[in-house]
């Protein structure tokens, strides 16, 4: 017998191990060592959350009550997995192509990104999952009770509620910690997946151990077990064809539509090829899980006293045989099954609730500010955390309301039938282009209501939520509306009756609704994209034209994806279009990509609605679809090469056009500069000439001579300064500059720059925002040159920032082997048109007098950064003028060698001192 305290200690230790494993996996993933974190084995093991505590404890109980029928729950998923070529392959491909975040998102995206459907599916899922989560809490509590009471039969723990509460709170903590680390639901939750993979191994090992002990320890091997089965009360197999088919079907449907299965199978999938492995490995796992169920049930029925709860045979059998350690292992197996299910279910449901209910609600409530929604990211993460807590609270509430009881299997099946209502809309969505959003809503609604009426509400028992008279005689005494005998069909048992009617009416409503209604253009487009996901020729875009301001889109995306991610995405897209900087051309193609990207975070419907605010009138219309269709016909006649070439040409043309614009503007500026540089050179020259002529007068008094010579000198210095700048620039441009590479602390460099720049317009009060701790990092560069760049940027801000209270933010970050330093002020910024020009030589935005320079500063900065292997760019969409200086952490080639030498020197200096 294991003392209860030791059990609790082991349990806590096990939870700590889970935390550590999840934490280690997250750390590895952060460092980029993905490797085996994404292996097919881990993928297959993560699918095992299908086997919950219901399987672990309940399967034996089920077998003890109805014999072989329990296998149907595993035969359905087996058929779906070995038939992966039909459905799963397509689902996973669609999930990746559309960056689907949940099953509600998939349905909503397929039927024209309609959020109504997302809400319906979310509702169904939450209602169906609540009893299921309660079931997990109940099983953990029951198994605790077995140990607490000391005798195998008495599993009544005085404070069962407290155990369930502790378990629920612990699970909430774990799920929030590892399930809401990043917003993009399409990114993988490495920590969670690793933890549930570990739990999958634990539960398999535990059940196999108990099974092996039962067959070879208690019974006398295989032959003896067969004999015992023949002699047991469940020796006869009263196979009921209806239940056999119905249960297989409903479990097959459930593995496709359960939100948690969808989460691990589609959303967390990192490689389509893993599915091929899972197609045989997961059925093998299921087979191993159910292999010993029948022997355990039979031996348990035989050896344990009459009236022992068969749902706990896995625990009580080893205990009764005096195998405390084995019972402990079994307990951990059951605990694993329960916790892994709850964790993933909570993540999946929280994603659905936050993406389809909270975020749209919040966006529509603040209609006025919806164009610049601010920090959506924080809101969504917070709502996801609250949803996780809410869902677990619901589960706990259901548990304490129902007070446990009821055989485990019954609750699980009710849940299965509930989520199976999504199946017609799901399959119709990926195989039938004719399915419409109205049809799907009708089918889902019908199925949900029928399920509620015929199965869910009656499951609370007579006199529960439905009165006894209603159950027996139907509402208002109408017999053919009796919940468990619709249209007078009373030959089916309640579960089959519910499956039959809900699926039949659901499918009928879906098909009829789809046939009768006409889809919106966006629905038709999404229909093609989903049904024909394997053929590459889907030329249509959801946006007929671009037109949105790239800068606005960037500002909005930063609120959702986070500043850094959004900037990186925009920069890459601009690069792909052959443009420099952060603002790509807002082509329909780009908008589509951006929408997908956002959809990965907040779901398709919200992403579409948010972008639609900027691209007004650009949503695709029926005419556009027809145009696309006829275009597609024509394109077919051209060769692929031609298509690629024209793409290439378009890109070149865009580049050329841009270059041409730049050239024209530059030539104008150059002319202006030439006349101005002549003027600049001429002014000092004129005075030098004039004063030197005066100096030639021999009768000039001494002090006058002094004074005039002084003037000549100042003018000559000014002249030399100007010429120095020009020379400097030409040396930098030719890459012939001698760099003096050193290691230095970035913080010190910024300090130096701030100090030196403070004599630019010293009369202005100027607020600086810096995050000092983040600035301490080593840089390997020509520090004097780098400081020169910083000084230039800071003094530019001091000079040109036109805010009443000028402020400058300097933020430093290190990512992906590069250090970036952002200088962001709060002025009006630089107009879009001028952004590409400011780094050119002689470029100046305002008139000379105000600028007081020759317009070479930023040009020199750009050349310095290029020489240092870094870059400087204008950062749009930051609410002021913003510049980003970026340089590599490790410079390349010979520069690095010098630096390494000098860093050794520094190290030696440090040890000496």
């Amino acid at each position, binding site marked *: 017998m294991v003392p209860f305290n030791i059990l609790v200690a082991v349990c806590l230790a096990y939870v700590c191990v889970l935390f550590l494993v999840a934490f280690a996996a997250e750390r590895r993933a952060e460092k980029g060592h993905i490797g085996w974190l994404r292996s097919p084995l881990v993928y297959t093991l993560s699918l095992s959350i299908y086997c919950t505590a219901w399987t672990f404890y309940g399967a034996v109980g089920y077998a003890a009550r109805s*014999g*072989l029928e329990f*296998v149907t729950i595993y*035969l359905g998923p*087996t*058929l*779906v*997995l*070995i*038939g*992966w*070529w*039909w459905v799963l392959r397509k689902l996973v491909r669609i999930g990746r192509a559309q960056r689907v975040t949940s099953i509600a998102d998939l349905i909503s995206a397929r039927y024209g990104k309609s959020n109504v459907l997302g809400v319906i599916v979310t509702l169904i899922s939450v209602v169906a999952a609540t009893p299921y989560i309660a079931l997990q809490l109940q099983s953990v509590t029951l198994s605790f009770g077995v140990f607490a009471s000391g005798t195998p039969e008495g599993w009544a723990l005085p404070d069962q509620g407290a155990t369930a509460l502790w378990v629920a709170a612990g699970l909430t903590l774990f799920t929030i910690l590892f399930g809401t680390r990043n917003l993009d639901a399409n990114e993988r939750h490495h920590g969670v997946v690793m933890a549930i993979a570990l739990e999958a191994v634990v539960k398999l090992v535990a059940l196999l151990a108990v099974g092996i002990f039962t067959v070879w320890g208690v019974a006398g091997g295989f032959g003896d077990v*067969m004999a015992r*089965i*023949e002699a*047991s009360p*469940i*020796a*006869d*197999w*009263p*196979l*009921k*064809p209806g239940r*056999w*088919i119905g249960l*297989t079907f409903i479990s097959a449907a459930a593995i496709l539509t359960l939100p948690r299965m969808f989460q691990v199978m589609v959303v967390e999938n990192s490689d389509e*090829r893993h599915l*091929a*492995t899972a*197609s*045989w490995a997961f*059925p*093998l796992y299921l*087979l191993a899980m159910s*292999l010993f169920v*029948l022997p355990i049930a039979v031996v348990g029925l035989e050896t344990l006293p009459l009236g022992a709860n068969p749902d706990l045979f896995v625990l009580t059998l080893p205990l009764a045989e005096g195998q405390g350690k084995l019972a402990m292992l079994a307990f951990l197996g059951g605990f694993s099954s329960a916790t892994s299910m709850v964790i993933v279910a909570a993540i999946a449901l929280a994603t659905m609730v936050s993406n389809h209910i909270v975020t749209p609600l919040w966006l529509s409530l603040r209609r006025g500010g919806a164009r610049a929604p601010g920090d959506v990211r924080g809101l969504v993460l917070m709502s996801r955390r609250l949803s996780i807590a809410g869902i677990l609270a619901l589960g706990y509430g259901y548990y304490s309301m129902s007070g446990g009881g009821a055989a485990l299997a019954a609750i699980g099946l009710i849940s299965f039938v509930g989520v199976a209502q999504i199946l017609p809309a799901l399959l119709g969505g990926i195989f039938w282009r004719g399915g419409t959003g109205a049809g799907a809503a009708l089918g889902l609604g019908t199925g949900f209501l029928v399920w509620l009426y015929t199965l869910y509400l009656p499951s609370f028992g007579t006199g529960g939520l439905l009165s006894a008279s209603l159950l027996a005689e139907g509402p208002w005494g109408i017999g053919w509306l009796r919940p468990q005998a619709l249209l007078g069909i009373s030959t089916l048992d309640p579960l089959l009756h519910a499956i039959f009617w809900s699926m039949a009416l659901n499918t009928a409503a879906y098909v009829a609704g789809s046939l009768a209604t006409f889809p919106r253009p966006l629905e038709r487009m999404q229909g093609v994209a989903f049904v024909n996901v394997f*053929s*590459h*020729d889907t030329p249509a875009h959801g946006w007929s034209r671009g037109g949105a301001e790239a800068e606005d889109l960037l500002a909005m995306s930063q609120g959702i994806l986070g500043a850094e991610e959004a900037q990186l995405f925009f920069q890459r897209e601009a690069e792909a279009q052959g443009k420099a900087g952060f603002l790509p051309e807002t082509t329909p193609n780009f908008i589509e990509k951006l929408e997908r990207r956002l959809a990965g975070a907040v779901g398709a419907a919200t992403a579409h609605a948010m972008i639609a605010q900027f691209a007004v009138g650009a949503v695709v219309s029926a005419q556009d679809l027809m145009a696309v269709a006829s275009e597609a016909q024509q394109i*077919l*006649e051209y060769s*692929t090469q031609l298509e690629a070439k024209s793409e290439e040409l378009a890109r070149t043309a865009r580049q050329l056009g841009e270059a041409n614009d730049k050239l024209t503007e530059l030539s104008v500026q150059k002319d202006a500069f030439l006349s101005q540089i002549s003027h600049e050179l001429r002014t000092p020259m004129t005075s030098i000439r004039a004063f030197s002529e005066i100096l030639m007068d021999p009768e000039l008094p001494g002090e006058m001579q002094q004074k005039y010579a002084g003037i000549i000198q100042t003018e000559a210095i000014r002249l030399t300064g100007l010429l120095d700048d020009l020379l400097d620039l030409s040396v930098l441009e030719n890459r012939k500059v001698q760099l003096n590479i050193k290691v230095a602390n970035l913080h010190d460099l910024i300090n130096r720059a701030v100090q030196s720049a403070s004599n630019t317009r010293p009369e202005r009060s100027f607020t600086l925002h810096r995050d000092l701790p983040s600035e301490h990092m080593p840089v390997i560069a020509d520090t004097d040159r780098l400081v020169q760049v910083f000084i230039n940027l800071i003094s530019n801000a001091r000079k040109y920032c036109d805010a009443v209270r000028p402020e400058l933010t300097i933020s430093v970050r290190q990512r992906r082997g590069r250090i970036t330093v952002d200088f962001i002020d709060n002025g009006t910024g630089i107009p879009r048109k001028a952004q590409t020009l400011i780094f050119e030589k002689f470029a100046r935005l305002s008139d000379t007098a105000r600028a007081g320079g020759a317009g070479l500063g930023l040009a020199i900065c750009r050349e310095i950064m290029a020489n240092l292997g870094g870059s400087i760019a204008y950062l749009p969409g930051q609410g002021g003028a913003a510049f980003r200086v970026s340089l590599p952490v490790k410079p390349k080639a010979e520069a690095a060698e010098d630096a390494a030498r000098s860093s050794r020197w520094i190290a030696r200096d440090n040890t000496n001192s």
Partner: protein
Amino acid sequence: MKNPRPPLFLARQNYRRRRMMDAARLLPILGIFLFLLPILWRTAETPEPDTAWGGLYIFSVWLLLILAAFVLARVLSRSEKAGGAPDPAKNGAGPD
């Protein structure tokens, strides 16, 4: 991307690949057939106990399907990796 008119006949390994895909599609149908077969035994009406042998049958079929799925998954992912390029192992397997 797509050829406007796909060829009517395929080379040997592409032909094999298509048939393997067919097999992958048919496997669950075979599974359904084998799993539903016990319904026809009318086990409830026979006098002798059936659970033990019925269980043996179900688990054997189950294992068989897993093996078949394993073989198909291997073949399909190998030919996917090879892509359109000729697979020497397959060419050597038999006369053309």
